[in-house]
C-alpha cells in the first residue's frame, strides 16, 4: 500500500505537498480500506465514550466524589446515555450566526483528528502483524500537517457564532496551536533523526532494535507531551475554552450533538496524542524496553501504554490550574523551543559520534537545564512576597483610632 517516496521528491515541495495530505486517503482505495475506516470510526466513537467515563471516574475520585454511578455498573453506560441526550437536544443557533459556517465547523474540527488516526501503528493482533491503516513514509510530516487543520474549524466556529467570547476563544486557540506546533515539530525532528526515517512504523522498529526514545530523547518526550497537551487545549493549557474566563470559548453557542462533536474531537485528540506519544517515544507495541513479549498481543501492550498516558493527562487536568495566555506563549517560545533545538543537536551527536558522547551530552544538558531553571526561579522573584503574622497588641480601654 505504501508508495516509496524518493528523497529527491522531498526537495520539490509542490509535488509532494498535496501528496502528504491526500495520499493516505486516496492511494488505492479498496473495500478493505472502507471497512477499515468504518471500523476505525466506530472504534474511536466507543473509545471516546469509554474515555469520558474514565475521566469522570478519575475526576470523581480525585475530588472525593464517586463519579457516575447510576447508569450501568459503576456508571459505565453514562456516556452512551449522555450521547442519546445530546442527540435529542434542540440544535440551537444564534440569530446572528453565519449559519452555514456554524453548521460545518464541528466536522472540520473532528475530521483532521480522525484522519491522523490512519497512520498510527497499532501493533500485532494474532496472525495480523503490525496493523496500520496506511503505512506511510511521510507519517511524521503528516501528523504535523493534518491536526493543524483543526484551527480552521475552530476559527470558523468562533467567528460564525457571533459571540465575542467565542471570537476571543478561537483567537486564543489558533495562537496556541500555531505556537505549539513549532516545539512539536522540533521534537519530532529529533525522533526522525534518531530513526533515520519519517515513517512511524520505522520509528517503532528502531525503538525495538535499540531503546525506547523516551530514554534516548527524554527532553524530546517532555516537549512533545506538553506541546500535544497544549494543542488539544487541555488543562493547564485550556485557555481557549477556559470556563471561568470566556465560558467555553468557541463552543459557547453550540448545543446538542453539534457541541457533542466538538467534545468528541477533543477526547479523540487526547487518545490520538497519547497513542502518538506511545508510538514515537514509548516503543509502540513493544512490551518492555528490549523485551518483545508476545508480539501477537502487540495491540494490548500498545493500549496499555496509551491508557496510562491518558490517565496521566486526566490526572494533570484535575490537579493544575490554568496558565495565562502570555505565560503559555513564554513557555512555548522561550522554554520548549530552545530545549527542542538542544535535543535536536543531541540527536545529531548520537547519529554521528555514537552513544557515549550522546549520553555525556545529554547528562550535561540535563544539569544545565536544571541550573537554568534554578537561575530563572531566582531571577523571577526579586520582590519579597508572602505574608507574615503580626501580633497586634490588645488595646486597653481606649480604642485605637484607626480608619
Amino acid at each position: 500500500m505504501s508508495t516509496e517516496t524518493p528523497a529527491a521528491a522531498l526537495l520539490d515541495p509542490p509535488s509532494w505537498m498535496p501528496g502528504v495530505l491526500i495520499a493516505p486517503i486516496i492511494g488505492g482505495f479498496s473495500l478493505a480500506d472502507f471497512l477499515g475506516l468504518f471500523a476505525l470510526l466506530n472504534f474511536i466513537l466507543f473509545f471516546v465514550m469509554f474515555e469520558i467515563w474514565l475521566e469522570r471516574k478519575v475526576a470523581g475520585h480525585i475530588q472525593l466524589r464517586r463519579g457516575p454511578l447510576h447508569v450501568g455498573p459503576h456508571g459505565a453506560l453514562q456516556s452512551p446515555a449522555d450521547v442519546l441526550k445530546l442527540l435529542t437536544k434542540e440544535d440551537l443557533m444564534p440569530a446572528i450566526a453565519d449559519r452555514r459556517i456554524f453548521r460545518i465547523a464541528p466536522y472540520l474540527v473532528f475530521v483532521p483528528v480522525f484522519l491522523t488516526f490512519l497512520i498510527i501503528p497499532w501493533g500485532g493482533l494474532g496472525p495480523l502483524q503490525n496493523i496500520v491503516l496506511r503505512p506511510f513514509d511521510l507519517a511524521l510530516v503528516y501528523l504535523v500537517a493534518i491536526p493543524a487543520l483543526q484551527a480552521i474549524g475552530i476559527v470558523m466556529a468562533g467567528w460564525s457564532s457571533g459571540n465575542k467570547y467565542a471570537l476571543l476563544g478561537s483567537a486564543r486557540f489558533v495562537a496556541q496551536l500555531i505556537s505549539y506546533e513549532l516545539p512539536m515539530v522540533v521534537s519530532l525532528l529529533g525522533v526522525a533523526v534518531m530513526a533515520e526515517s519519517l515513517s512511524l512504523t520505522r520509528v517503532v522498529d528502531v525503538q525495538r532494535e535499540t531503546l525506547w526514545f523516551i530514554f534516548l530523547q527524554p527532553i524530546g518526550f517532555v516537549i512533545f507531551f506538553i506541546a500535544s497537551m497544549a494543542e488539544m487545549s487541555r488543562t493547564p493549557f485550556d485557555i481557549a475554552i477556559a470556563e471561568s474566563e470566556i465560558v467555553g470559548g468557541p463552543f459557547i453557542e453550540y448545543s446538542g450533538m453539534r457541541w457533542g462533536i466538538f467534545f468528541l474531537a477533543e477526547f479523540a485528540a487526547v487518545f490520538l496524542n497519547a497513542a502518538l506519544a506511545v508510538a514515537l517515544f514509548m516503543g509502540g507495541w513493544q512490551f518492555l524496553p528490549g523485551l518483545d513479549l508476545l508480539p501477537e498481543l502487540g495491540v494490548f501492550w500498545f493500549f496499555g501504554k496509551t491508557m496510562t498516558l491518558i490517565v496521566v493527562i486526566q490526572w494533570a487536568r484535575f490537579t493544575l490550574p490554568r496558565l495565562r495566555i502570555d505565560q503559555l506563549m513564554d513557555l512555548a517560545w522561550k522554554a520548549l523551543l530552545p530545549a527542542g533545538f538542544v535535543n535536536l543537536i543531541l540527536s545529531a551527536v548520537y547519529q554521528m559520534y555514537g552513544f557515549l558522547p550522546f549520553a555525556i551530552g545529554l547528562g550535561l544538558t540535563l544539569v544545565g537545564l536544571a541550573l537554568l531553571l534554578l537561575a530563572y526561579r531566582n531571577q523571577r522573584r526579586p520582590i519579597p512576597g508572602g505574608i507574615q503574622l503580626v501580633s497586634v497588641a490588645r488595646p486597653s480601654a481606649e480604642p485605637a483610632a484607626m480608619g
Partner: protein
Amino acid sequence: MAIDISDPSIDTLAPTESQIVEERNLETVEMTINMGPQHPSTHGVFRMVLALAGERVQQVEPFIGYLHRGAEKLGEAGDVEGYRKAVIWLDRTDYLSVWPNEHCYMLCLEKLAGLQVPERAEYIRVILSELGRINSHAMFYGAFGADAGATTPFMYAFALREELYSLFEAVGGQRMFPNYFRPGGLREDVPADFVARVGHVVDTGYRACDEFDRLLSGNEIFLARTQGIGVVSAERAIDLGLSGPVLRAAGMPLDVRRVEPYSLYDRFDFDVPVGTRGDCYERYLIRLQEIRQSLGIVEQAIRDLPAGPIMGNAPKALRPPKGDAYQRIENARGDFGVYIVSDGRSAAPYRVKYRSPCFVNLQGLNDMVVGAYVADAVLALGSIDIVLGEVDR
C-alpha cells in the same frame, strides 16, 4: 465587525489602495465584552463591562443591583417581632458569613437595649462566628481555585464545609441560615455533644488546611497566575475604604477584632496575617492563614467554655429605648457594621443600615483590573471574595 457586502464603497475582493494603506497602520480596536450577570466566575450576578484591547482590559464598568431585595427596608417592616424579622433578612444578604453578621446584629441590639449576655452564650457565639468565618474562607478557596482554572479545590473546600454545616445543623437546626442568636443570648443551649463535635471539626479543619496548601498554595502555575496581579497599595486601599483581607494584604494590620475588640475577642490569642504587596496571592494566603487562626480561637474558646445560663434578662417582646447604636465587627470579608435606630415605641427598628464590606471592597476593582489580562480580571474579582447578596442587599 461583519462587512456589509452590499455597501458599494467596500470592494471585498480587491483591496483598494487606501485599504492597503490603512492596513499598514493597523490599530487595535477596542472590544467591549459584557461579563455577567450570567457568567460562571462573577460570583453571583455581578456584571462587568470590559473594554478590551486584545486581551488587555482598558476599562471596567461594574454594574450591581441584580440581587437587590431591600434587606434594609424590609428590616423596618412589620409591626410584630420586627427586630427578629430584620435578622432573617440580614442572614440572606451575606449568605456565607451568616454567623458573624448575626453576631454583629445582636451586639448592636444589645448595645441599644442595654441587655446583658451570659458568658456561656457569648463564648458559643464566638465559636460559631469563627466557624462561620472558616466556612466563608473555605468557600473562597474553592471559588478562587475555580477562577484560576483548577476544579479540584472546590470539592476539597466543600468536604470541609460539609462538616461545618453538619455542625451548624446540629446547633441551630438549619445549615445555612440558623437564626440561632437572640438579643440577650441564644435560642437554646448547644447540644450535649457540642464540644466533642467542635473538636472533631477543628481537627478536620487543620487537616483540610494542609490539603489546601499542598494542592494549590505552592503550585508554580498558581503563583505565576496570582503573584503581582490585582495589586492595591495600602494608601490606595485606605483611600477607597477597603477592609478585611484585601486591606491586610496591602500591609495594614487592621482587624476589628484587635483594634476595637468586641465580644470576647480580647481574651483570645491570635495573630493577624498581614501581606506586603497587596496582590491576589497574598489575599489568598491571608485567608488560608485566617482559617488557621480562627481554628486556634475556636480551640481556646472550647477549652474555656463556661457552664451557665445561655439567656440573659431579655424581655420577650423587645422594645429598645429611643436612640441609635452602631456596632462594627470583622466578618469574613472585612469591616461589617450594623446601625439600628429605634423610635422607642414600635416593635420594629425605625431604621437599620448595614455597612457591607463587599460593597466597599468592590471599589478597588478598577485599580485591580485595568491594565490586566481578562484572565487576571477574573482572578482579581475572585480575590475580593464578593458575595453579591451583600453588595446588592
